[in-house]
C-alpha cells in the first residue's frame, strides 16, 4: 500500500497546500463570508485525506498522527465549551453569551472587519479544528481496522 502513481502523487503534492490554505481562509472569514467552521474543517480534512489516498496511510499518519489528531480534537471541543462557559460566567445569565461583543465592542462599529463579532470567529476556529480532526480520525479508523476486527499490518 504505497499509494498511487507518480502523476497523482505529483499533482496532489502541489494541490494539498492550496486546499489547506483555502480551508483556513474559509474558517477565518467565516463570520464575514459564506462558510464557517464546518465547511472549512471539511476542506482541511480533505487535504489530509488526499494525502492518505495518494501516498498511503502511513505517510498521512506521519504528518498528523493518531494521538495528535485526538489531542487536537479534544482541544477544539474544550475551546468551544470554554467559550460557552465564559459567556455564562462573565456576567451574562446564559450559555454562549457573546461576551466579547457585548462587553468590549460597541454596536455595529467594526462590521465587515476581520476582528469583529466577538466570540464567533473563535468558535469557528474551534469547530474547524474539531471537524477536521474528527473526519481525519474517522477515515483513519475506517482504513486501519478490518471488518473482522484485526488491525491491518503496516507495510
Amino acid at each position, binding site marked *: 500500500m504505497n499509494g498511487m502513481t507518480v502523476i497523482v502523487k505529483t499533482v496532489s503534492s502541489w494541490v494539498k497546500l492550496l486546499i489547506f490554505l483555502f480551508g483556513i481562509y474559509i474558517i477565518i472569514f467565516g463570520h464575514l463570508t459564506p462558510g464557517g467552521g464546518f465547511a472549512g474543517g471539511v476542506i482541511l480534512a480533505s487535504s489530509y485525506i488526499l494525502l492518505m489516498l495518494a501516498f498511503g496511510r502511513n505517510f498521512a499518519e506521519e504528518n498528523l498522527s493518531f494521538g495528535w489528531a485526538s489531542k487536537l480534537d479534544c482541544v477544539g471541543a474544550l475551546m468551544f465549551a470554554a467559550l460557552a462557559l465564559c459567556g455564562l460566567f462573565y456576567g451574562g445569565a446564559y450559555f454562549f453569551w457573546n461576551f466579547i461583543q457585548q462587553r468590549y465592542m460597541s454596536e455595529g462599529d467594526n462590521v465587515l472587519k476581520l476582528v469583529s463579532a466577538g466570540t464567533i470567529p473563535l468558535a469557528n476556529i474551534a469547530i474547524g479544528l474539531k471537524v477536521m480532526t474528527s473526519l481525519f480520525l474517522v477515515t483513519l479508523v475506517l482504513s486501519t481496522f478490518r471488518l473482522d*476486527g484485526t488491525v491491518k499490518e503496516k507495510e
Partner: protein
Amino acid sequence: MVTIYILLLFVIIASIIAVETRKLLSAVICIGAVGFGGSLLFLFLRAPDIAITQIVVEVLGLIILIRATISRDVTFISGDREFFGMVVSIVILLVITVAGIRVLGTLPAFGTPIISQVSDAASNTYIKEGLAKTGAANIVSSVILDFRAYDTLGEATVLFTSIIGAMVILRKKSRKLLEEPQE
C-alpha cells in the same frame, strides 16, 4: 404548559421502564417512546426543526437497535393477539393519516415565508437584530454560533460519536491485538 408536563411525565416513566425491564426488546421500544416524546416536546416548545431532526434520528436508531436485539430476544405472537395487533396498527395508521392531512392544511402557501404569518417568529428577531447583537456580517454564522450555539454544540458532539461508533463496530478483538501485537 400542561401538555409539556404530561409529556415530560410520559418520558420519565418510559425511561424508568426502559431501565427496569428485563426484556431487551421492551427496553429498546421504551427508548423509542422516550425519543418520540422528546420530539413532541420540541414541537410544543416551538422548535420544529429540532423536532424533525429528533424524529429522523430516532427512527433510524430504533430500526438499528431492534435489528440488533431481535436475534437475541424473540417473542412469538399467535392467535388472538395477532388480530388485536393488526387492529391497533390500523387504528394508529388512520389517526396518523388524519392528523397529517390536517397539519398539511395549516401550512402556509408555497413560497410565502412564515415570518409574514407569525409576527413573533424567532427568525424575525434574527434578521432584525442579528447584526446589532452579534456584529457578524454573515447572518448564518450569527445564528448558528450565537443565537443557537447550543445546537451547534450538540452537532459537534455527533462527530465525536461517529468516531466512537466506527471504532466500536470495527474493532472486535483488536484491542487485545494492540496490547500484545505479536501473536
